[in-house]
């Protein structure tokens, strides 16, 4: 009897090793925590240098973004991220990398139709639905919570 797609699905599940979930989660927890610690240290540094609270809130993410883009450009970020997993994807570092990496990859197709057209290839959905969600939230807020 020929193997059916249903039966084969079971066979594939049996034969395919699972991702090491516990190990991945532990690494993500530690690395994500380290990104936050770095953010806190930066906040303390900027405060000590005399920046206002509002300015600190802007400087910290900008620094993390700048650092991520630099590490992406010199080919180090992906080597960290393959261990860190969600620990570097979830914070703003993940977003910065998802913009910087296609910008680099599509340079060979030119500044406009390469980098320009593809820079939001990965981050595009976040921008569309993040912006969409913000508008929806704003409307609900305007209707009920004013």
């Amino acid at each position: 009897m020929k193997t059916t797609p249903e039966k084969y699905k079971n066979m594939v599940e049996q034969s395919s090793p699972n991702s090491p979930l516990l190990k991945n989660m532990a690494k993500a927890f530690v690395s994500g925590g380290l990104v936050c610690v770095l953010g806190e240290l930066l906040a303390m540094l900027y405060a000590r240098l005399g920046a206002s609270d509002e300015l600190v809130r802007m400087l910290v993410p900008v620094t993390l973004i700048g650092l991520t883009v630099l590490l992406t450009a010199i080919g180090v970020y992906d080597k960290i991220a393959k261990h860190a997993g969600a620990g570097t994807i979830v914070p703003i570092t993940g977003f910065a990398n998802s913009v910087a990496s296609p910008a680099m990859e599509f340079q060979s197709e030119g500044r406009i139709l390469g980098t320009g057209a593809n820079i939001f290839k990965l981050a595009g959905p976040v921008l569309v639905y993040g912006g969409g969600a913000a508008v929806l939230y704003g409307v609900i807020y305007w209707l009920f919570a004013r």
Partner: protein
Amino acid sequence: MAERIGLDTITLQSRPRIAAFAAVGGKLEAGGLLAGKLARIFDDDTMGQDSWEKAEAQLQQAAAESVLHRAGLSAKEIDLHFAGDLLGQCSASMFGSRGLGMPFVGIYGACSTMALSLALAAITVESGAAQTALASTSSHFCSAEKQFRQPLEYGGQRPPTAQWTATAAGACLLRGGNVNDDTGTPQITQICLGRVTDLGVKDANNMGAAMAPAAASTVGSFLRDTQTIPGDYDLILTGDLGSVGSDLLRQLLLRDWGVDLSDRHNDCGMMLYSQEQPNEINAGASGCGCSAAVLCGDILPRMAAGELRRVLFIATGALLSSVSPFQGESIPSIAHAVLIESGK
């Protein structure tokens, strides 16, 4: 003349000879099984080019030039060149062949391209339509990632079922046969072109699972048509199923065909890299260049030396596009088999 036997198999009575063969590859590919066996090693992934696509075209061209050099022939003496790769419109093959000026046939069979190009070249030589035919294919890790997955510098994790696209190319030169050749030159004696098979696998990070049913179908059909058993071959060599796909192939052949591959089977995807190599190989190597480089860099030289005499080479291809997975399609696959025998 070629003769059909059974349902799917073709016997080539003139036994087209694989008169020369060569594999080229990147630094990583030069570090495992193929250490010291590549005709040319590219230390830099860009191959001195300004895009990954051009780099892969370089690979393809280097493989073709190496095989011509080894055969002592110029491009003008080649009647037909069959080549393909993974990129859209087979562009690495096209650009790689541009400077060589051979009559060119671009083919697409995803990672089954080495077997497909060998089969087509052998049939052409058998028919007399060509005296000399070149079969080649390539893949490049970076161009494949760019087209099918994420940008190179994107920071993500690969699941353990994922495979690593080989940066490599292989080429074979086929010449009209000599039935009584006992010099050890590998000869193509039978061919089985596979059918598109799909058991519904949708996970593009588990290509081995997607391709195993196609490999099982082609191996099963070939053994049925030729009334042979795995024990009749020195090696049954699949293309790039990796560890997951190889395991599934053995299960499927036993369930559906009552065939036990046991110790006769090996897979190029599990052979190319060694465990000590530093990158994320996971389930094994993949890409057109994987089976091409293992065949041309390791298996054919061993056949010419008389170490292996009868090798059934089955290259497997996952026929997905960069669009179809997003439209909810599963991954159709194909496998083509070529029986290579050496007279020594």
